């Protein structure tokens, strides 16, 4: 046998003429090499994109954890050049503002979602509501503050926790509304029809079937919105401003006064030339990030359980 396989041989074994060495994947070929190089590049860029996350976490744990102590939670912010101090009032303030904002945005968001789920896809009002929610999703957070300043601070004549809470609730609303709508839509139609067949009014269907079934999904949306709201700084800068005192005095809360929050404290202290304040800003950032991440994780675990 000299050159090539005979036709009969090829008929019996179609692969007989193939040089298998040519089919081996080889990095020496430009095409394969280019593909391999680009793959490496993409992997490297993905890792590089995650470095900031680890750097932020490392800095928070290192610089913030170094400063963090029980005193941080019980003391008031220090004056310039003063040593020690903490940010207890800012933690309480953040909790008050976020709780108020949640109280405002949850009823509006969930009931709007109930309305959206019930109405026809082509309903003009429903389309307008969905459009409004989408517009608010991409709304710059500072403009929520500008609005609350114009509508609340100027009208009531002073900075207050209420104004801050209203600004934050504007930013929380679209998340709650859109996730709640999705969650309610996921409730099987059969369940609703069964309830209607039993003679339930549509309100009863909503309260006894749709909302309980969709609850994990709705709670996920609320938790994600709370996590976002707690971290917002821009809407609080000139609505609830800042305060060096406790928001709760003599056992009652005054919502109509300037209120401290963790986010604004970090912003104020980060720019100060005093070592103690900068250290406190890092410690406050650690507390804030822990708060946000824990809320986020709770929200995600709720929806994961629902999915399974």
């Amino acid at each position: 046998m000299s050159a090539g396989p005979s036709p009969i041989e090829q008929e019996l074994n179609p692969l007989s003429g193939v040089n298998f060495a040519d089919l081996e994947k080889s990095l020496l070929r430009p095409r394969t090499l280019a593909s391999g190089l680009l793959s490496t590049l993409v992997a490297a860029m993905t890792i590089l994109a995650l470095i900031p996350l680890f750097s932020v976490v490392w800095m928070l744990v290192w610089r913030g954890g170094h400063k963090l102590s029980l005193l941080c939670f019980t003391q008031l912010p220090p004056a310039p050049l003063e040593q020690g101090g903490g940010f207890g009032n800012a933690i309480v303030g953040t909790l008050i503002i976020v709780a108020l904002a949640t109280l405002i945005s949850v009823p509006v968001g969930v009931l709007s979602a109930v309305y959206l789920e019930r109405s026809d896809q082509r309903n003009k009002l429903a389309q307008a509501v969905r459009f409004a929610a989408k517009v608010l999703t991409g709304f710059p957070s500072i403009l929520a503050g500008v609005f609350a300043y114009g509508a609340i601070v100027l009208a009531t004549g002073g900075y207050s926790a209420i104004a801050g809470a209203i600004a934050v609730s504007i930013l929380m609303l679209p998340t709650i509304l859109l996730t709640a709508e999705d969650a309610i839509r996921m409730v099987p139609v059969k369940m609703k029809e069964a309830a209607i067949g039993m003679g339930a009014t549509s309100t009863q269907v909503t309260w006894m079937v749709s909302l309980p079934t969709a609850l994990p999904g709705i709670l996920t949306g609320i938790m994600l919105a709370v996590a976002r709201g707690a971290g917002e700084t821009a809407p609080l800068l000139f609505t609830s401003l800042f305060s060096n005192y406790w928001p709760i005095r003599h056992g009652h809360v005054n919502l109509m006064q300037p209120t401290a929050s963790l986010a604004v404290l970090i912003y104020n202290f980060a720019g100060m030339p005093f070592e103690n304040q900068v250290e406190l800003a890092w410690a406050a950032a650690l507390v804030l990030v822990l708060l946000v991440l824990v809320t986020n994780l709770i929200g995600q675990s709720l929806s994961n359980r629902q999915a399974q």
Partner: protein
Amino acid sequence: MSPEVQISQPPSRLQLLADAVFRRLCVAFACLSILLVALIVWRIAYAAAPAASQYGLGFLSGRTWDANNGQYAILPEIWGTLYSSLLALFFGTAFGVAAAIFLSEGYLASFLFGLLKVFHIEFHSFWGRIPQEGENLLRNLIELLAAIPSVVYGLWGLFVVIPLIRPLCNWLHLKMGWLPIFGTDLSGPGMLPAAIVLSIMVLPTITAISRDALTSVPPKLRMAAYGLGATRWETILAVILPTALRGIFGGVVLAFGRALGETMALAMLVGNANQISVSLFSPANTLAALLANNFPEARPKDVAVLMYAALVLLGITLLVNMIGAFMLQRASGDREGGKA
């Protein structure tokens, strides 16, 4: 009526009344969210009206912001907003799309397979779920980037990014200062650190939307390209990316909208200098940072001017967001059309 207890029954009058009330309540709350948007736009426009009539369009094209002499114009801020956002978008898109490709192409699976092949244990069922779990972990980590509050990024940029890039930037200025983008040195806060931090903040948006667009490319297209003998990257560049392009672009535009409105990280890192410069290292200012810095101590007559600036920012972001949402809608419409 039979004496046995009926579970099903017609609603009582009270229940019907409750139903009617609750339905109307839902409609009212739904209207409230539309009203809210209208109210925000109206409130800002109303408060901006005095300044708008006083300064007119010259407000957009002038360069001086001098509160003492009552001279206001925001061209440097508009420039800074667009410049920082575009820079952030450049870095954010490069890294975001790369991460999306990495997460949607099964790289972890092939890497793990290659690794296990060395030890000849690649076919054990124990490994089956690991690549999937790994991809989920990476995806969640990238989404965590979005969960960190922007003020914390500002703090991090101030104490980590600026000291880190300063020697490199000043070296670049020294060696290549004749290039306009390296025209000044980095003395502290400036455009580049702000853009870097901003790009980290928009990256999760781009990655999430791009990954959705990439994974929804019909598998048949990929199989056909592989069947023709294309390598992995020939397939990605010639088939998969062009198919997913519109979805990716929609995500990039949405990220642009986010970058334009981002406040805290920029207010802390951009330097608040009222100037127009193409240099990456010079301090600048953005509309959002201008509002954040000037509102807290604004006198009543400044408020109208700041509201006017807020109105401009509102207009720009609304426009960009609507374009992004429209493009994403068309991208998904394409896909549905393709299926039918």
